[in-house]
């Protein structure tokens, strides 16, 4: 029982810290790229904005699917939390780490599609609707590579458990053993959290896309939920490819946090440097390049795992 309490507490702290870090990083990189000076504002901008949104009146369109509209951001956040729960942040903190950890993670990330689709569909407004359908196209394209690279990471571990996958990297991290894995995974992370070049459902050309009709607490919840998914996905990247808690001198949790941070910096940085790609072209590239590469990754990883036996 105390284990579970500690795990839940750690999960809560990790999520809170992660979401806050994403807001700080985003602001920091944005200021840096825009050529503004750096000020302490980066630390406060996110929380202040959240409080501001809590004071704003929620909006409603003419005839929305109100229940689904309210459900979508809550579901997105919960899926982020579930995704992070599958990852043991340290050897002694396995919350929902089980023999089928990456299947659970995959299920949580597959359900993100439901949350985003509902968010765009519910408003009964044309631009959110286009955003919703765009995300379905995006999600159907990145889901296969996402599952395949995680399966590759599971091959040397002979287990689908995230904890086992981390332990299997004691000698050499998967990022070296399976060089194709992390780059493909990072592309899918951008899709999962619709961040940066894959910010298709909430894009500027749709005037905010699925969030175009949202205001107030629901908008804050949507932003937080999206950051939670990003944090969960980055943590999974750290666990599956960068050896999770493994590392000398420092405690495991710190290593896990640092590695997640590196991936978060990478994805936030890309968000301010890479132009948004077009849905149609991404779909073609995902199927014609990413999935075959991921399948090759599976094969090569399997071969190496056999050779290492």
């Amino acid at each position, binding site marked *: 029982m105390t284990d579970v309490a500690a795990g839940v507490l750690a999960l809560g702290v990790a999520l809170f810290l992660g979401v806050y870090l994403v807001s700080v990083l985003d602001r920091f990189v944005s200021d840096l790229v*825009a050529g503004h000076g750096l000020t302490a504002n980066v630390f406060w901008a996110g929380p202040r*904005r959240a409080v*501001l949104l809590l004071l704003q*009146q929620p909006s409603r369109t003419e005839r929305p699917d109100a229940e689904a509209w309210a459900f979508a951001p809550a579901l997105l956040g919960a899926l982020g939390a579930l995704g992070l729960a599958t990852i043991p942040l340290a050897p002694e903190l396995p919350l929902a780490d089980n023999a089928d950890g990456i299947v659970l993670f995959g299920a949580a990330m597959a359900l993100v599609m439901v949350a985003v689709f509902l968010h765009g569909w519910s408003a009964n407004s044309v631009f959110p609707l286009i955003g919703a359908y765009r995300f379905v196209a995006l999600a159907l394209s990145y889901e296969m590579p996402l599952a395949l690279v995680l399966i590759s990471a599971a091959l040397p571990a002979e287990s689908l458990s995230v904890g086992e996958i981390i332990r299997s990297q004691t000698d050499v991290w998967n990022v070296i053993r399976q060089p194709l894995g992390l780059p493909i995974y990072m592309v899918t992370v951008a899709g999962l959290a619709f961040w940066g070049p894959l910010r298709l459902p909430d894009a*500027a*050309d*749709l005037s905010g896309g699925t969030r175009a009709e*949202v205001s107030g607490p629901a908008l804050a919840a949507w932003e937080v939920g999206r950051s939670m998914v990003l944090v969960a996905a980055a943590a999974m990247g750290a666990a599956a490819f960068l050896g999770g808690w493994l590392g000398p001198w420092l405690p495991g949790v710190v290593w896990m946090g640092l590695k997640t941070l590196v991936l978060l910096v990478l994805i936030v940085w890309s968000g301010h440097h890479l132009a948004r790609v*077009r849905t149609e072209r991404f779909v073609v590239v995902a199927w014609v390049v990413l999935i075959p590469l991921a399948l090759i990754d599976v094969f090569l990883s399997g071969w190496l795992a056999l050779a290492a036996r």
Partner: protein
Amino acid sequence: MGVTSHRGAGRGAVRDELRRAVGKIAAGSAVPVFPMAGVGGRDAARRIRLSRRLEVVSSPRAANVLLIAGEITPRLLRPAIRIHDQASPPRATLFLIAGGAPEPDVPSKPEAGSNTEVAAVESALRTHAIRDRFFPFAGLVHQESEVEAASRALHRDLVLAERATEPAIQPDRPPLPWRGRGPYGHGGKGMTGGAPYGRPLPERGNDRDGLQLDRLPLRIGPFFPPLVPGLLLDVELHGDVVQAAELGPNPFSGYVGASATCPFMRALASPVRIADLELSRARSHLRWLSDALHALDLSALSIRALALAERLEADNVPLISAELARFSRRLERSRTLTWATRGVGHIRVDQVGDTHGPVARATGVEADARCDDIEYLALGFRPIVHDDGDAWARWRQRIGEARQSLRLVTQAGDRRSGGAGIVEDPRGMIRLQTHTLDSTSQLLPELVTGREWGDAVLAAVSLDLDLERDARLTSVIEEGR
């Protein structure tokens, strides 16, 4: 009873204190502003991106302050009112009277000034009238430099509940009754008949792949952020693909006259320093670059491009030139940018027609009024031309021309050009004699038809439309007649 009420009051006081404390935290955040640009307000509306205290939001739902910059013409009035009413409370409106025109109660002396000043005063008076009639609660500033402080003050008062949120301007009319006519309570013949909640369902139409699915007829604009201010686009969407498109009327027509502040307009009548012309051209291209980057979700890079444009002055050209060189290298190396824009909005040479300027030159047509100018030729001017004719070519075209303009500024010295009734402005050729209008905006419907919405927006952005310029050219040419 006295005790209860006392306790109730105490609780109320605690709640007020709490509300105040929370409000103070929120008041420190960047002000979410939704800008709406009327006549002469586009630059000011764009420049709020530069302020760190203001945050441009893409939809009025998330805005606290609605900035109405410049004059709202009759065609813009209803949309502005609708957007005001769509914004979620707490909301406040701020008017920026362009050009620093005087207050209406200050006796102005139109006879003392030029025609332009008269026009500015008239425009300001009209804006005041609109504000008094429809937005009596709105804030008002006369200088662009006051926008930030005024927005912040409005925002602070709103979140601290010291200022009441603005009420809706339109009446709260419930939807038409529609229920109860069919066997299951629906409002018409068949399942798609009737007008649920006072609005009909879309009707089917043919599609290019042989299916017949619903078409959504929409009028988008004039304040749709990814498109230029004032653009009214009538589209029929079939899924996310534009099935048919048509340009709506130009809301600026009849409300803009010749502007004395624009060097290109002056160059039509009398020679102007080439350095001034080219600085202005570079600024215009950089402002476009900022808008285009914004439409690609690169808001931070967009701020950087805009900062280059706004910092650009005659005395810092080498510095800006070097920065722009670095910036453009970075953009041209960007694979995702190429990927996003290559092949989008492709214009064939036979479609160019009466289109001039960078759009024509990016399609391989070497048309430039500067080629016939002896002063430009003396500077060794040769127009930049790209052959591809797609959005990516137009991106490179404008970045290249901005750099070329900066080079010309450094070489031009005191040379002057113009006065012959023909000038090349950043968007094309202006000729007084031939009475022809530049037709870039007429290309738009053809470019977006059959495209996915994202491609359509990128194509529209790459044209660098300016409806105010279109209206101005019309009025100048009509004056010339």
